[in-house]
Every structure is written in structure tokens, then in C-alpha cells.
């Protein structure tokens, strides 16, 4: 305990640019998470619509696709794409990456491997969230729409999806929390982000050559790194809870879609 709270072991936070450096690298995690989330929402909607299709072959095949990717460790998927993605694709990313992205994201070909891997995994989870949202409406609202003579796709577009999408907003924000935690895994592909930045601070801060001269013990560094993730994710979960309350106020006691560590459920109030 003495070691943990010894002020000498915390001085590194205020030494040089250590703290700012960590914050800057955390931006890379957030950027990757947002890119993956945007792609997963689009892909997830397509997968969910295929999954609920009336065609048995399509829906079974999509169901198998979802179950396979959802049940694999995300680290396995990331490592696989990091090793197996052709070099041309990685170089292509470095060529086309838009200039507003952080430098380390633009210059690393492995970023595209990690984005592909995280998107495949997350779109499968998001598809399940979409499906639960659509499913929770389908019986009553779907039958009502059909009774009014609306064709399937029209009913989907103007009756089911607008309500279903609103119900899944809290669960999607919840999944963004899991995703933000998962972006820490891309450090294994030597992408510059918060976890690898922690190891840089730990290795260089105490060095008299170019460092700040104040040693940064690994325990304290990673408590700060973890604290940054916790602060960001707590803000997200507050947002998710607010949205859930607002949705319940607006629509009465509806079933809301809940996400827990990549598992999707329907919470009946």
C-alpha cells in the first residue's frame, strides 16, 4: 500500500508532457472506435434485415454468420487480420487515409486490419441488437401494418424501423463502451494508442536521455491509463441511461434492448 500511494511514484504525471501524451494517444482509440461503430451500424442493419428475411436459406445462412463471429474472441479476429491481410490493402489505406485523422492512424497499415476485424465482430453484435429491436415490435405493429395493407418493405421502412431504431439507441451506446475497451487490443498489432503509449511513458520517463528524469512505475501508469478509459466509458453509460429513461417517458413502459458484454437481451419493465 505504501508503494501504491507514495507521492514519489505519482510525480511523473506532472513531469514533462507525460499526461498530455497519454491523452493525445487516447484520441486514437476513440477515433478507431467511432470509425468502427459507423461501419458496424451500416453493416449491422444490412445483416439484421437479411437475418429476419422470409427466405429460409438467407436467414439461416446469416444466422450462422452472426453466431460464428459473435462467439469468437475478438483478439483472435484482430490477430488474424493483422497477419493475413495482404500488404497491398494496408498500403492502400496509408495512401487514401483522409488528412484529418491523427497521424499515427494515417501512417499505420495495421489500422485497416484492426478496423476490418473490429467491424466484422461488432456488426454481428449490432445486428443482434437491431434484430431484438425489430422483433420486439414485429407482432403487434407488424400485424397492424399488414392489416392496413402496407407491403412488407414499406411497413419495415415507415413503421417498424423508426421505432425499433429508437429502442436500440441505449444498447448501441452500451456496445460503444465495449468497443472502446476493445480498441485497447489493437496495441497488439503495434498501432500507437493509449495502452502502447503507457508502455512508452513507463520506459522513457525515468530516462536521463530525453526523458523527464522522473521514473513512471508501470502500476501507477496503467492505473492512470485505466482511469482514462473508465472516465470516458462512465460518461457514455450515463448517456445511455439518460436515453433509456427518455425513451421510457416517451413511449410508456416499453421493452428496451439491453447489452451486457456483447450479449443482447430484452428487458421488460
Amino acid at each position: 500500500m505504501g508503494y501504491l500511494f507514495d507521492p514519489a511514484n505519482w510525480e511523473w504525471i506532472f513531469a514533462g508532457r507525460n499526461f498530455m501524451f497519454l491523452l493525445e494517444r487516447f484520441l486514437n482509440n476513440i477515433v478507431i472506435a467511432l470509425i468502427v461503430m459507423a461501419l458496424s451500424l451500416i453493416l449491422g442493419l444490412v445483416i439484421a434485415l437479411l437475418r429476419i428475411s422470409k427466405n429460409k436459406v438467407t436467414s439461416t445462412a446469416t444466422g450462422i454468420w452472426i453466431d460464428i463471429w459473435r462467439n469468437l474472441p475478438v483478439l483472435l479476429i484482430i490477430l488474424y487480420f493483422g497477419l493475413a491481410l495482404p500488404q497491398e490493402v494496408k498500403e492502400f489505406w496509408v495512401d487514401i487515409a483522409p488528412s484529418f485523422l491523427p497521424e499515427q492512424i494515417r501512417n499505420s497499415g495495421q489500422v485497416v486490419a484492426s478496423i476490418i476485424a473490429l467491424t466484422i465482430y461488432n456488426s454481428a453484435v449490432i445486428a443482434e441488437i437491431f434484430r431484438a429491436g425489430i422483433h420486439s415490435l414485429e407482432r403487434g405493429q407488424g400485424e397492424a401494418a399488414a392489416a392496413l395493407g402496407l407491403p412488407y418493405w414499406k411497413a419495415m421502412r415507415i413503421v417498424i424501423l423508426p421505432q425499433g431504431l429508437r429502442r436500440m439507441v441505449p444498447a448501441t451506446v452500451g456496445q460503444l463502451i465495449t468497443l472502446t475497451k476493445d480498441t485497447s487490443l489493437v496495441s497488439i498489432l503495434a498501432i500507437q494508442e493509449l495502452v502502447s503509449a503507457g508502455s512508452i511513458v513507463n520506459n522513457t520517463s525515468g530516462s536521463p536521455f530525453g526523458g523527464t528524469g522522473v521514473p513512471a512505475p508501470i502500476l501507477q501508469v496503467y492505473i492512470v491509463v485505466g482511469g482514462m478509459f473508465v472516465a470516458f466509458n462512465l460518461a457514455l453509460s450515463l448517456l445511455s441511461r439518460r436515453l433509456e429513461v427518455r425513451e421510457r417517458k416517451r413511449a410508456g413502459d416499453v421493452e428496451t434492448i439491453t447489452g451486457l458484454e456483447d450479449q443482447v437481451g430484452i428487458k421488460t419493465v
Partner: protein
Amino acid sequence: MDRILPIITNNLDVYLSGLLVTLQLVGISFVVAMVVGTLIASFRIAPAKLLNWIGGFYVESFRNIPLLVLSIIFSAGFIRAGFPIGKMASGSAALGLYTAAYIAEAIRSGVSAVSKGQIEASLSLGFTYGQTMRQIILPQAFRTVIPPIGNLIIAMIKNSAIVAGSIIALDDILQGARLVNSRTFATNEAFFWAGVGYLLLTIPATIIVRRLETRYAVKR
């Protein structure tokens, strides 16, 4: 793709010992998670503000921290702080304490799903708080808690790869695949069989959890 069979037959020992390490890690972590998770859940529902606060602090911090960061803290961090901790011990502490936060939330929501009227009724019948919990609330909460705990075991199987792949470096299924890949350069095949290994654990677990969900479905 013609190497798909030789890769598994030549490296069966690597994959099998990896499977064993994964199971061992998940098994020990599950015990840790259940014990700590139940304790934290009882903190969160106890009629004492300080305990509520400690429970809430635990859940919010362990649920929102990446497991990879937790693994580094529990291995290299602890060793530097002067606690010599073994690989399996630090791995199962990280995975177990991380999952405990989710277990605590599952138990808590199971308890709060039992209606408040029942607690009031049993208290007014003269049961003590402890008796009410043990005899009225927990047996009912147990039913609602089983499916989410099953889901958390599946999540643990997947998350064990993160712990083993971190600085702790346990030779689990995924690390076995990396070893086979570095020996043979058959990336597709090496990872294919690791994927099969994980799916052999997670898919049956998913099917069992779905069955339990329908069996224990509580109509309120």
C-alpha cells in the same frame, strides 16, 4: 487450403494443451467471479450507504476498464510493486475480478426484479432482513440470474484470450495458433483451428444458455 488437415494433425498437442489452459483459466476465474460478484452484489443491496458506495465504485471501475489494462496491472504492475504473483494467479485474478463486476450487476438486477411488495410482506410477517433475503428473495432471484451468468461464462471464454495474450503470456488456444503460425507460416489454417477450438466451447454453451432462458423464463 490443402494444408488444412496436416496443420491440425501435426500440431494437435499444441492445440489440446492450449484448450486445457483456456479451460483452466476460465474455471478458476469463474470461481473468483462468483465469490467476489456475490459479495459485491450484497454490498450494493445492503441497507448501508457506505457499502452501497463501495459496491458501486467496484462495479463502475472494473466494468469500464479494458481487460488488457487490468491484466497489465495485475501482472507486471504487481510484480514491480513487490508482490511476486504467478502467471495463472494474475490471469485468473484479472479475468475473475473483471467478470465479478458483471456478475454483481446480474445478481443485483435479479434481486430487484423480485417485487418490492414481497420484501415488505415478509418483513411485516416478522422475518429478519437476512431471513427475507435467504428464504424469499434469493430463491426467486436465482431463476432470473441463471441465463445472464451463462452468457457471462461465454464472455469469459472469449475474454480469456485477452488475458493470455497480454503481458501475462499464458499458452492458451490463441497463443498456440500463433506458435503454429510462426512455425509453419500457414496463417489461415493455424487460426482456423484456433477458431474451431473456441467455437467448440462457446457454441454449445450458447445453446445451453438459450435452453435455460426458455426454461427459467419468468412471466411477471
